[in-house]
């Protein structure tokens, strides 16, 4: 499958990644190879095969609506790079 520079840039933007010019060729080749590999699935006749929505033969696994203790806040924030007054602190958004 032919992947273009535009495709790679578009996907990179959605993933918030910056890709250097010299890396571009490598990404095009690797992503194309993955898509070609997956393309093989298109060759299989799937007529009459029911839609797979989950790989486990399970359904209706539920929880009761009962409150249980939460994580103490010092543990919640323990791994945060930055905090303020019990909040996580994140850099400027826009």
């Amino acid at each position, binding site marked *: 499958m032919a992947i273009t520079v535009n495709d790679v840039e578009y996907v990179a933007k959605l993933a918030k990644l910056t890709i250097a010019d010299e890396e571009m060729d490598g990404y095009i080749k690797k992503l194309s190879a993955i898509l070609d590999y997956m393309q093989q699935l298109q060759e299989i006749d799937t007529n009459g095969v029911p839609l797979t929505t989950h790989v486990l033969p399970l359904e209706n696994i539920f929880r009761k609506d009962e409150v249980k203790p939460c994580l103490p806040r010092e543990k919640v924030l323990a791994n945060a790079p930055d905090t303020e*007054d019990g909040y996580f602190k994140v850099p400027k958004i826009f």
Partner: protein
Amino acid sequence: MTEFQTVIGLEFHAELKTKTKIFCSCPTTFAGEPNTHVCPVCLGLPGVLPVLNKRAVELAMKAGLALNCQISPFSKFDRKNYFYPDLPKAYQVTQYPLPICKSGYITVPDADGNEKNIRINRIHLEEDAGKLVHSGESITTSNYSLPDYNRAAVPLIEIVSEPDMASAEEAKAFGDKLKLILEYAGVSDVKMEQGSLRCDVNISLMPKGSDKLGTKVEIKNLNSFRAMHRAIQFEEDRQRRMIERGEKIVQETRTWDEGSGQTLSMRSKENDHDYRYFPEPDLVPTVITPEWIEAVRSELPELPDKREKRLKEECGLSYYDCAQIVATPALAFFFDEVAKIFDDKKTIANWLIGDVSRLINVAEKEYEQIPIAADDLAYLLEQAKSGAINNNSAKAVLEEMFASGKKPAEIISERGFAQISDSSALEEAVKAVIEANAKAAEDFRAGKQQAMGFLMGQVMKATKGQANPNLVKELLAKMLK
């Protein structure tokens, strides 16, 4: 000049009335210290396993049934991927191709007062995002932001209408009706001011009579139906002017700015495929049987349309009375309770809309906290109807019931409100009044009708207002013959 037709579709997010979050056991309580209602599951820490809250599924089914939807026998969850700091996992668990409910409708009045069905495309279950506190005045002027994940993963239903509304009025009617139905069904608190009900508008214009939809714009940040109404009118105007100037409408998300009364551009809208939806592997599908649907349906109370019809037809209430009662579910449920015991429904309606509502407002209470019992009100109305107490006394008793929580029988006896309806007890008083007011009695015998009023007043005074007025009149007429 071309005439344009407005096309509006609405999306509502309603927080479900569960005790716990959608995939973990953290509480859903509003407010609370920041980041204290969270656990490894709703924070999206590695290695955790979400498990679906059964109550959330049932409340979504209830909403679907109340909104005339089909409940899907098979539904599942998907991940919607986007980066935003209010989303701890960088994806939202939601339902994409297989939502829990499909194809419903709500009936609203159109511009000519006819009934119009607004179709509902789908209802899906999903998790709410957290809340951001910004360091500055607004997001763009802030140097940093502070996420609080207490609200993250609170269960939501998203209700998506078809683009069936043609005006701000129809959109508002749809919103009002939807809110009321969800409230009756007990699905959500529907408090727009607290964010438990939120609304986004999709709006476009097309030439009248055309069937080709124009480019739509999404409006967010609508905190009330009044704001929604204003935003739609502003946007109709903005888009019409643009089209008339030959400019192209851009598909984008705009935010309503209450202060300036306009919509402002936020960002160009992602296409669905930009969210890279894929099946949520940690949650298994939900299979709903007809038996389960019927069990949930049996939990639903009578809904507004049917209730209004019943009150009109069975209880003989006016359109105004019905609308007043049906608009407040707690009042409607209370009405039914009282009506089980006391059968004069017109009288119940008058008291509820009148004195009971007034006292609730004076006490600054919600209708959910009517501080009197239905059987006590029924008792009081019965006493007034039978003439055991007069109407003014009944009002005073009600006021004291609100204030002290005492039983009506107790108040009536304490304050001596019981009317004297025993003629032998009254005869004495009537006789005394006639003797003491010989002139008035003479006037009446001479044909002066006004004298009767005066004599009655004297009897009432002598009995401290407790005499049954009809009986007094009867006795006076008899004794003055």
